[in-house]
């Protein structure tokens, strides 16, 4: 990818389209029973992660919850690897062992894909701890939903990050509902950002339907963190058009509410901005959309053709190199790279 100053907004619009078309196709494939388990779609929230990746370096750490397809795509994981993961195939970004909620991509610094609400927030703090421990100038972006902010792990993590002054941005993707429970019914605050105040962490609110606003705010925060390590909190107000997961008809909200947000669609908005500024024609937009659709369709074909993870490797991913049984290796010089797999099993 290009350095972020030059990262083209048309390219980011194209990424949003890829995410949207990917999720639509995932929905269709789920209904066709090609995808199992739970499947949570990001449609409506595209400007959040797209704005975020446009504001940071490629080697900054990103970690999120279970609505994670877009975070992998935004980080550069291929649509093929993402769709193959949904299909449970060996070519998936987690070799078909993680599924929709557990996308990982070490190469692109995408650290999951975590499905226990709030449980990954301490992990993000640990990644930020490692940054400071090594004296690096990276930043960790930790995404989570409005449902996570009432978990104990979230509170413990914020306190630790503030106490140790760690380089982390807590990004709350407030889509108004934790599954079917509205923020009003779950949270004893007028606004979510006030959670940060309790830990002396600077907090701000941003319009999550506006790509530019998200990008510029995160860029400003990250710039400040790189100068002097500290945590920050960002409440991003967004909306998911679909239910919590594929099985949720979202009957807890009105059609009028959904329509109101659809009119404020993040893709339509960035498209309009670019068109107004003479940087994008209708023809160009149609071409971008066509490409996104083709990429996703090709990803479905790739996933269908890909092999299943082999049965005889079932035990290969339980323990990393069974060194301790065989003798003890010197790990002090271990690089930050995936370990060699072996068939060691315990017990």
């Amino acid at each position, binding site marked *: 990818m290009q350095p972020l100053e030059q990262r083209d907004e048309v390219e980011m619009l194209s990424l949003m389209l890829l995410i949207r078309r990917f999720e639509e196709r995932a929905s269709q494939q789920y209904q066709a029973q090609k995808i199992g388990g739970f499947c949570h779609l990001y449609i409506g929230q595209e400007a959040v992660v797209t704005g975020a990746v446009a504001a940071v370096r490629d080697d900054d*750490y990103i*970690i999120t919850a279970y609505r994670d397809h877009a975070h992998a795509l935004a980080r550069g994981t291929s649509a093929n690897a993402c769709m193959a993961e949904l299909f449970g195939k060996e070519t*998936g*970004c*987690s*070799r*078909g*062992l*993680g599924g929709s909620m*557990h996308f*990982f*991509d*070490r190469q692109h610094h995408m*650290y*999951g*894909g*975590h499905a*226990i609400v709030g*449980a*990954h927030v*301490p*992990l*993000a*703090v*640990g*990644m930020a*701890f*490692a*940054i400071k*421990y090594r004296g690096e100038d990276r930043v960790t972006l930790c995404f989570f939903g409005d449902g996570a902010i009432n978990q*104990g*792990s979230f509170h*413990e*993590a914020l*306190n*630790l990050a503030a106490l*140790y002054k760690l380089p982390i941005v807590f990004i709350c993707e407030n889509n108004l509902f934790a599954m079917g429970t509205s923020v009003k019914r779950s949270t004893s605050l007028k606004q979510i950002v006030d959670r940060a105040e309790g830990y002396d962490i600077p907090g701000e609110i941003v319009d999550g339907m506006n790509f530019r606003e998200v990008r510029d705010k995160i860029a400003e925060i990250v710039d400040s963190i790189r100068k002097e390590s500290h945590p920050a909190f960002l409440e991003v107000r967004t909306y998911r058009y679909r239910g919590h997961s594929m099985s949720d008809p979202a009957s807890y909200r009105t059609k009028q509410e959904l329509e109101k947000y659809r009119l404020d669609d993040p893709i339509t908005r960035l498209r309009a901005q670019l068109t107004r500024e003479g940087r994008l024609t209708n023809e160009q937009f149609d071409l971008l959309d066509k490409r996104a659709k083709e990429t996703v369709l090709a990803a479905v074909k790739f996933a269908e053709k890909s092999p299943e993870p082999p049965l005889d490797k079932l035990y*290969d*991913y*339980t*323990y*990393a*190199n069974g*060194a*301790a*049984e065989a003798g*003890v*290796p*010197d*790990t*002090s010089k*271990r*690089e*930050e790279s*995936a*370990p060699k*797999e072996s068939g060691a*099993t*315990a*017990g």
Partner: protein
Amino acid sequence: MREITYRQALNEALAEELERDPNVFLMGEEVAEYQGAYKVSHGLLQRFGPRRIVDTPISENGFAGLGVGAAMVGLRPIIEFMTFSFSLVAFDQVVNNAPNMFTMSGGQFNIPITFRGPNGPAHQLGATHSHATEPLYANAPGLKICTPATPRDAKGLLKTAVRDNNPVLVLEAELLYSSKGMVEPPDEELLIPLGKAEVKREGNDVSVICYAQTVPLALKVAAQLEEEDISAEIVDLRSIKPLDEKAIFDSVAKTHRVVIVEQDRPFCGVGAEVCYRIQKNIFDELDAPIIRVSQEDVPMPYNERLEKAVLPNADKVIAAVKRVCYA
């Protein structure tokens, strides 16, 4: 060899691993300025500084998770639980995040983390502070668990745990911190592999399989039994997972009688698994049904007399041995 305490042995292991690998750090409640709730980390703050010996607030879930995250990006955290009874507050991190990550990520993220601290019933601490957590954690694939019973094993197993590329639980024995034993001198590298049991005393008539706090108990009983001409072989598992089946089977094939003395509770306890594996693999070697001596299946009472009644003791072990020996 020189004689040191179990606590000193652990302290040496920590210091040596911190010295050896700059990616290793120690984190937990009271590990730094207070010098450790049980003084295991005594002097480490002074020697390695606050960057690597890190005090935390009382937030087990938070700092256990912090350790897992730091391990994801290449550090090798040692997370101290003031006791493993408190690790239950961090159960999600220890069971759901640490051991699942390697699988869930298709082998991209292994978690080289050590969780350590005292485990098992101590003395009159009541129900919340007396948990023997090994069967809870042994049920989670992806974790390794060791239970040192001597200073030498404590040092060698902890050092190995820190170097392992997986999450390892070092379940220390609270009642043994001040116990003494012979350990190699500090200039001699001492590493004891995980998954290797040790025969702590040889015998011919009965195999007494034990670990952690039940090892000194079993050794004491063996001495008493000798006076009654019963020769007990004491097999210290040292690791619960991986389990050293070979050492167990070798001993049983020699004695043909088995008593399992465990510090946990009976239902789905460690002994149940050991029992299952023996009968499944070497049924014909058995001359008597296996007997388990464990805690009683009740929350730990505070009252001293009742607590003693709950725990394994010499009388219970002797009775069990005599039953399997038809003596």
